[in-house]
């Protein structure tokens, strides 16, 4: 069985990094009728989308399409025309492979769009899709499945990239989730709340740290020789003394290093999940989440300040936010 699943995973892995197939050409150029239809559906009254007079005097100098319509232009529609394909249909192969292994249900989980420019009536788009990654088998609240992450590059009639998109779906086995009776999306949504965070193993050496957090204090272990150390341990790495007490940290520090976790998305954590190694002004370093900052705005040396969060009733963890936000409401 293990061999089977390894072979299956290897077949999936072969498809990652490849173009999904031929670029998909939009069936219609960007046009006012589809824009009006969309604005009606969303009840979006922004006049730059539908009022030529207003749009002419706006920053755009004319009508533009709502940026969130990006994906609409290259949707295949109800009866897509058959087109001879030049490239292998990797997307089709991947879906058949997953369907054949029982991962027949699909749910979209993420969509990230970045726009280079606003689209205008007459723009003629095509989209090129790459299968960026296929996760190993994951047990989600929805069921056992694989996350498939695709990256799309949208180009206009001049071949210039106008937007990019990351689109992630979960292909899963129906009926294998904890919330199988509920709808797929409900289970995805419920999972962060339903699943508890992993708890630390509390020992005689580290109990002070967690008890300190519960009292609103970030404590650092201090050896009798005066040196501070973290993470907690029984003996001083310098003088080997087993005698220690604690010092209350100021909570101020700087980002020494960091990572932003994207995959695997493990409930109940939220992703992207920035995790920093913070050097406290007392000199010790501590691993904790960063909040209140965009992942791409994190910088080495960024001043941060600790806050203690009760992430679940009775469970407190330290986390850090940019110091400049201190004192804001």
């Amino acid at each position, binding site marked *: 069985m293990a061999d089977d699943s390894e072979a299956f995973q290897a077949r999936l892995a072969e498809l990652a990094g490849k173009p999904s197939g031929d670029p998909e050409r939009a069936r219609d150029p960007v046009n006012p009728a589809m824009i009006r239809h969309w604005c009606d559906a*969303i009840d979006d009254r922004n*006049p730059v989308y539908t009022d030529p007079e207003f749009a002419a005097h706006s920053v755009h100098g004319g009508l533009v399409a709502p*940026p969130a319509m990006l994906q609409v232009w290259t949707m295949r529609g109800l009866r897509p025309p058959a087109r001879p394909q030049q490239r292998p249909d990797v997307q089709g192969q991947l879906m058949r492979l997953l369907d054949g292994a029982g991962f027949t249900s699909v749910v979209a*989980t993420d969509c990230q769009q*970045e726009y280079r420019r*606003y689209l205008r009536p007459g723009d003629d788009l095509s989209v090129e899709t790459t299968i960026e990654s296929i996760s190993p088998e994951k047990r989600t609240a929805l069921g056992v499945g694989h996350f498939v992450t695709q990256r799309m590059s949208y180009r206009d009639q001049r071949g210039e990239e106008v937007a990019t998109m990351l689109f992630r779906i979960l292909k899963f086995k129906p009926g294998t989730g904890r919330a199988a*009776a509920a*709808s797929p999306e409900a289970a995805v*949504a419920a999972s962060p709340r339903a699943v508890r965070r992993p708890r630390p193993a509390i020992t005689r050496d580290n109990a002070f740290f967690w008890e300190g957090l519960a009292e609103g204090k970030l404590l650092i272990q201090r050896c009798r020789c005066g040196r501070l150390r973290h993470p907690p341990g029984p003996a001083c790495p310098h003088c080997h003394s087993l005698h220690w007490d604690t010092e209350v940290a100021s909570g101020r520090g700087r980002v020494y290093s960091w990572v932003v976790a994207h995959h695997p998305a493990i409930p109940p954590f939220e992703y992207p999940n920035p995790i920093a190694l913070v050097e406290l002004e007392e000199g010790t370093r501590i691993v904790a989440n960063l909040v209140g900052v965009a992942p791409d*705005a994190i910088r080495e040396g960024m001043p941060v300040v600790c806050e203690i969060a009760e992430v679940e009733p009775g469970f407190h963890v330290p986390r850090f936010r940019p110091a400049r936000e201190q004192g804001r409401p």
Partner: protein
Amino acid sequence: MSAARTTTLRFDAVSVGDELPSLEVPITATAIVAGALATRDFQDVHHDRDLAIARGSKDIFMNILTTNGYVGRFVSDWAGPDAMLHKIEIRLGAPNYPGDTMRMSGRVVEKRDGRVRVELEGSNSLGNHVVGSVELWLPEGRA
């Protein structure tokens, strides 16, 4: 119902921590089907109740492209017509079923070099339907 905003917020007039005016979106079958068709999404779970139930859902539900549209609208309703959206990033959660209401709320979490980032969520009776962030450019200077 939203009135069309004809003026645009200036970068200087926005502060980190500002809350966006909340938006309540009634989730009707018509809203779901209109959104699906306006986004050319003909997956049956977005318009055919019988097939949606047969697939294990309790009803038809809103497609991700429509949700993306509401997220864009929520931010541009607040910012005004000369704001330029740069990024929309969303993650879906609890489905939007007919008969529910999606309440959208958001706040400015970052501003730098003319660009503002808003974090937002749209929740319904089941929990968060969508969480996400939008980055946009606002005109410099004062209105």
